[in-house]
């Protein structure tokens, strides 16, 4: 039947074209130059800046998460705050050792009773649009933090304690607190913005920092350039680079490829397990991340609403093994919502309060009514390889007590909206960081009515202890209360606190001047070419 064969052959040829079309689209992810691999949208090959290095004095930094809301006073995630640190400043700003140093204010004074802060504004500070910073701007900014532009809910939670903000003259601003607080000073890192700019600040980004905002393309990049009028420039605190581009690269492997392909000059928060891939040709800085990584459990959802279940899970896992697998042993066990860099508050004895004990775990599970374990789902943002690895190790360890956990990888954006904000999850692995060196930032969020309490932890004793601690003006007493609060988190196993993870900052060998901060901050102003 020649006709049949002819027809069949024709059809075969037609079908043979199918793989061609398929190869056509799958192929895009593999052989194309690394430039496309690093750009999240994959649409803008001109984004590669390798060619500009020598003459441009610019740097492209790979960051893992998109910057969803650039309002400096609202910045929800640590990843946004560390970028905005370069553009905005408060009356004071964080310094590498975790204390605060004067910024827009040149000096400050705290009254004896701990309720009145007087700030002297620095002379010659200008916004990026060239306008000088006035007392009016400062008052506007602080009032906005206290909730003047929304329903009165403070944008910065510590501002709920503010009773009055006023200018005594052109260069002095007095903030009066309802309750005395020693820690309020750390909240004064809140960004100072031009008066009336609130509604547009998230898109215009006019601040006083060493870098000036240039542009932001969602899911792609944020560009900032050196601000020549920076007040600190005269003291040598100005930016050394002319331009910095934060490139959003949602995949660590793409980051490594981007580094090797010269599309990125610097990458932050790279898991230290990838050290072998980069150590030969780049400068590698290693440090802990200044955050608390944990298997965060939604305390509002069964079976995690049962303290026994949470404790059983804590006994089921082996924290040191997790650190070994996910961080090559370089992370530091925490045991509660505090990391070791905050020496004053850190309680090392909590780190191993739940040594791995499978029998005990099973016993507790049986008591809680789950003698055969249960099934659960761990939702993890896929752009953080370290959290993904950690979750995989935990899943293995939980198997031993009959808990069958499933791993659900989600995009960063949906993690923020569903897990962190929506609290629609069972368990998640992530890291929680804080802006400043007070214990407050790491602990206040677990008070039952705090809006950042995404694990929905609710404990009367904890709320009481925290309320006392917040109101306390005696440093020693306050520290003791904060320590007690940490113990409660550990005793109740509010979540399975694991470690302050380890990370790498990888840079082009021609760059120098990188400084680790003891808070979650990335200071680009000190970095420059040799």
């Amino acid at each position, binding site marked *: *039947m*020649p006709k*049949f*064969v002819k*027809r*069949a*052959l024709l*059809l*075969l040829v*037609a*079908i*043979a074209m*199918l*793989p061609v*079309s*398929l*190869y*056509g*689209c*799958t192929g895009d*992810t593999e052989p194309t130059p690394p430039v496309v691999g690093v750009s999240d949208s994959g649409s803008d090959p001109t984004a590669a800046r390798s060619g500009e290095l020598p003459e441009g004095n610019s740097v492209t930094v790979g960051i893992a998460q998109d910057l969803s809301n650039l309002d400096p006073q609202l910045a929800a995630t640590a990843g946004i705050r560390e970028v905005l640190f370069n553009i905005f400043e408060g009356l004071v700003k964080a310094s590498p050792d975790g204390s605060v140093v004067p910024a827009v204010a040149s000096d400050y004074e705290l009254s004896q009773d701990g309720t009145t802060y007087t700030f002297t504004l620095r002379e010659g500070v200008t916004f990026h649009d060239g306008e000088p910073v006035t007392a009016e701007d400062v008052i506007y900014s602080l009032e906005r933090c206290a909730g003047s532009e929304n329903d009165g809910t403070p944008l910065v939670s510590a501002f709920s304690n503010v009773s009055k903000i006023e200018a005594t003259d052109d260069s002095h601003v007095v903030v009066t607190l309802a309750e005395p607080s020693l820690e309020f000073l750390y909240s004064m890192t809140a960004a100072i913005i031009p008066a009336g700019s609130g509604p547009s600040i998230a898109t215009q980004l006019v601040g006083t920092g060493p870098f000036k905002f240039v542009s932001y393309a969602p899911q792609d990049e944020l560009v900032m350039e050196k601000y020549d009028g920076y007040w600190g420039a005269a003291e040598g605190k100005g930016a050394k680079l002319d331009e910095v581009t934060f490139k959003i690269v949602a*995949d*660590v*492997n793409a980051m*490594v490829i981007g580094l090797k392909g010269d599309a990125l000059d610097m990458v932050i928060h790279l898991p230290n*397990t*990838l050290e*072998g*891939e980069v150590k030969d040709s780049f400068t590698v800085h290693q440090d802990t991340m200044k955050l608390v990584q944990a298997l965060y459990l939604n305390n509002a959802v069964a079976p995690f609403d049962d303290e026994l279940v949470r404790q059983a899970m804590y006994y089921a896992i082996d924290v040191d*093994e997790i650190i*070994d*697998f996910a961080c090559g042993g370089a992370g530091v066990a925490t045991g509660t919502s505090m990391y070791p860099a905050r020496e004053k508050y850190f309680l090392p004895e909590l780190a191993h309060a739940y040594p791995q004990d499978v029998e005990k775990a099973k016993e507790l599970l049986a008591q809680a009514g789950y003698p055969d374990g249960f099934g659960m789902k761990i939702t993890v943002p*896929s752009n953080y*390889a370290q959290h*993904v*690895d950690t979750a*995989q*190790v935990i*899943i*293995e360890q939980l198997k031993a007590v009959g808990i069958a*956990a*499933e*791993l*659900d*990888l989600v995009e960063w954006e949906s993690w923020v909206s569903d897990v962190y904000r929506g609290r629609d999850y069972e368990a998640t692995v992530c890291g929680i960081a804080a802006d400043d060196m007070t214990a407050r930032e790491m602990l206040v969020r677990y008070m039952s009515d705090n809006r950042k309490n995404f694990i929905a932890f609710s404990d009367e004793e904890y709320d009481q202890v925290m309320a006392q601690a917040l109101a306390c003006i005696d440093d020693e007493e306050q520290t003791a209360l904060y320590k007690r609060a940490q113990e409660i988190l550990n005793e109740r196993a509010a979540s399975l606190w694991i470690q302050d993870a380890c990370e790498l900052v990888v840079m082009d060998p021609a760059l120098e001047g990188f400084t680790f901060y003891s808070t979650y901050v990335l200071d680009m102003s000190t970095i420059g070419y040799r």
Partner: protein
Amino acid sequence: MRRKNWYLIVGAVLTASMLAFTAVGFFWTPYEPSAMSAADKYAKPCAAHLFGCDQLGRDILSRTLEGAGATLAIALAVLAVGALAGLAVGALCGYHGGAADALVMRLCDAVAAFPSVLLALVVLAVTGPGKYNVIAALGVLFVPSFARLVRGEFLKYRDRDFVRSAKLIGVSDLRIIFVHILPNIWPVLLSGLTIGFNNAVLAEASMSYLGIGVSATEPSLGYLLKDAQGYLFTAPWYTAFPAAAIVLLILGVSLLGEGVRERMGVGT
């Protein structure tokens, strides 16, 4: 004398060995595929771990065995969904013709006009990742190609004398479709199936590679590749073995299909 059909021989051997490899994985793996061992992180291929170990000290041979099983299972399921639905649509359209035929075929054109992985991406972005979602998404995308193939064949046969005679003596349409015509198009369908299988393997691998395929707790070959790419220089064997498994699987089935085709060609 007939010359040796090397395509068929090599294809059959390769396919058979890959199938055997996968079959072994269903029943036995040297280690628990998800079991981690701190001492064996980045272990090079050696006697204890033939394919070496990954960043969490998991045995790559075990994971490749399991991954090949997952990939194969998904590919076959996709093929089954695509081929069965395509067969039904194609047969009905080809046999009956008319406005419905035109409409359905234009619909198929519309689906085929999108790059299939892109479409699957959209579907999975809505439904979320997971084995069954991947099967459903890819399965639907595979319908048009089969439908068109089958429809073409049915168009060819529907006016043949043996079909007309069958109609005259009152044989039902369904019986004509399945009993009288279908056996005739079997060889063409078989070739379509081998190519479809390869496409399914590749599509699953690329989707998992892009991170929208199977879940991490049940890795497929594509997922292993995704996981491995971060350690290309530290542990190149992690990438090499799963990749080799994909290549051999596809090469084998492609050659087999080619061999079958050549055999048909030589035979007439």
